[in-house]
């Protein structure tokens, strides 16, 4: 069996007629952590939105293979059921929708799709308890409306909590470090590291090298103007931190 989790081939994508991704290639295998770095407007968040299936993004060419599926043909919920997870940069507040109730609904819809049994209330609660402890999510926050009135740090913890609950095969963390103080950053990173396994993979999208001190990547890619212009190991991130993105741009 192939070790590849996701294979992105020459992906081009437009938003409102403007091309953002201009032929992007990326291979992620089981057990790997990839970091994607790049300046503002380089297409980082577009990449995560396209992979999660956001409607406004129109793919004009290229293919994305996700565990043997044509990812671009799947609805956002089907992508989730197949094992894709996106931790949002700006998690939305949803008043009136309970955090744990919606997660139970999500798990049950996935189990139905995978033709597995529905999760019992007892097992679900045990799981909530275990996973919430992993990211230090306050008991009260679990039962509140989704992200409503959460601080920036609490929202990000909640994202990782949901990730832990859904046990994805590929997690994409979109600027999870933004808005986090150093303590929260550690807790969130610890959570991600504990969830890491030989069977799963993570793509970390970030501006700054800081997060990569905690979530150590196997590969670092630099995204600029819709393409990956350089790939390397974790030392590339350090070099970027030191020299800035202009160093690479002038290199081309």
């Amino acid at each position, binding site marked *: 069996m192939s070790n590849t989790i996701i294979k992105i081939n020459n992906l081009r994508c437009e938003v409102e007629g403007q091309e953002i991704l201009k032929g992007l290639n990326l291979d992620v295998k089981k057990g790997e952590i990839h970091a994607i770095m790049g300046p503002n407007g380089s297409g980082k968040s577009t990449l995560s939105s396209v992979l999660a299936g956001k409607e406004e993004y129109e793919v004009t060419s290229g293919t994305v293979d996700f565990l043997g599926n044509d990812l671009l043909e799947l609805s956002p919920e089907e992508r989730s059921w197949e094992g894709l997870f996106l931790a949002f940069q700006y998690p939305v507040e949803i008043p009136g929708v309970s955090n744990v109730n919606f997660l139970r*609904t999500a798990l049950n819809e996935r189990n139905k799709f995978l033709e597995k049994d529905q999760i019992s209330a007892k097992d679900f609660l045990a799981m909530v308890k275990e996973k919430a402890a992993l990211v230090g999510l306050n008991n009260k926050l679990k039962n509140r409306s*989704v992200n409503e009135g959460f601080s920036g740090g609490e929202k990000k913890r909640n994202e990782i909590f949901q990730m832990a609950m*859904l046990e994805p095969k590929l997690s994409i963390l979109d600027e999870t470090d933004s808005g986090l103080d150093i303590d929260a950053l550690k807790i969130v990173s610890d959570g991600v590291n504990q969830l890491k396994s030989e069977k799963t993979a993570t793509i970390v999208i970030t501006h700054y090298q800081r997060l990569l001190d905690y979530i150590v990547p196997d590969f670092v890619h630099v995204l600029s103007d819709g393409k990956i212009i350089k790939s390397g190991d974790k030392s590339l991130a350090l070099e970027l931190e030191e020299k800035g993105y202009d160093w690479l741009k002038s290199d081309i």
Partner: protein
Amino acid sequence: MEKEVLKSFKNLTPSSIFLSKSENKLESLIKIGFPNRNSENWKYTKLSKLFKSNFNDPKSPSLKVYPKSKLPSTSTSTIVVENGKINTHLTCLDNIDGLEVALFSESGIELASKIDHTVSNYEDAFTYLNGYLLNEGINIKVKKHIKISQPLHIVNVVTKSCVAVNSRLNIELEECAELTVLQSFISENSSSSFVNHVTEAHISENANLHIDKLQDYQNNYNIVSEYINQKSNSSFTINTFSYSGLLIRNGLNIDVNGQNCHTELNGVFTVSENDYIDNHTLVNHLEPNCQSHENYKGIIEDEGIGVFNGKVIVHKDAQKIQAYQNNNNILLSDYSKVFAKPELEIFADDVKCSHGSTTGQLDEEALFYLQSRGVGLGTAQKLLLEGFIAEIADKISCEKFKEYVLGKLI
């Protein structure tokens, strides 16, 4: 003139209850006539179809089985009014100390003198029509200091097509009394019928009345006119959930006639197909130091039309009033419509009042968020709509009623 006004109702037999009053009602009705599109308060209300109908007298109750599937499964005392008359077979009323239930048809003239005190402050053609054609009325009285812990369920069911039903509920709470009423308006194997209902309530000093109301009329017409009178230190809450009906119109009028009163009116209306649901409310703050809270949420799909018109009047000497009014609507289709008009008229100078109304669509970002977590689109929409009305559903006193109401969303 009389013929023209009563055209749709010419086959109906005038009420034999409180005879002298019913004649007065006819006179008043003829004097003011029915409203039309030129009447400010009725300008969105499509009455033309109603007036093109030719209604018949309702038939006697015949239901043998309680229409369970269409009602919340409460296990409390239940009065079933079928086609305007009591269905004695399905009515099940516990004997409760301090609670008196009487029928207008079995009461004497002494009851006649006790009703209509608040109604008579208002001129309304359908209320006059109700008095003229009244089939039956229920009078509920809770005596001083009696707190009824179990809710009382009153089911108004219409089981015949093309009939006009005129029913009435009268509630009198004496000092320090408490009562919760569940009111269900439903239809069973009926279409093109018209249920014209009037509720009048008198809430004495320190008394507390709570009403949870459900309207699910499918292909029928329903006009409910409510007249509430609150005395000092009393509390009144009404939660109205309207789900379907060719035309549903709620006219809720509350006179706050004492100090330190609490008034709360909430509603959810879901309008689909070609249905029309209209909530007109009026809170009359006549005395100082009171609070009123109003919150209505509309969900409109297909070619449905929803109307919210909430009015609060703070009279000249009613200082220190706090009156809050909110209305939010979600349109689920390109052809759905809502007309929203929050109104405040303030004649006092030391008050805290606010009003606001929003109309929009389901939050795309929230939908995508839920989908990306593996909640299918349909379920995600349902979750968001449940979330949208959650703060109102939470006000329902009876858990079974709440479950039922939430279950009816989409």
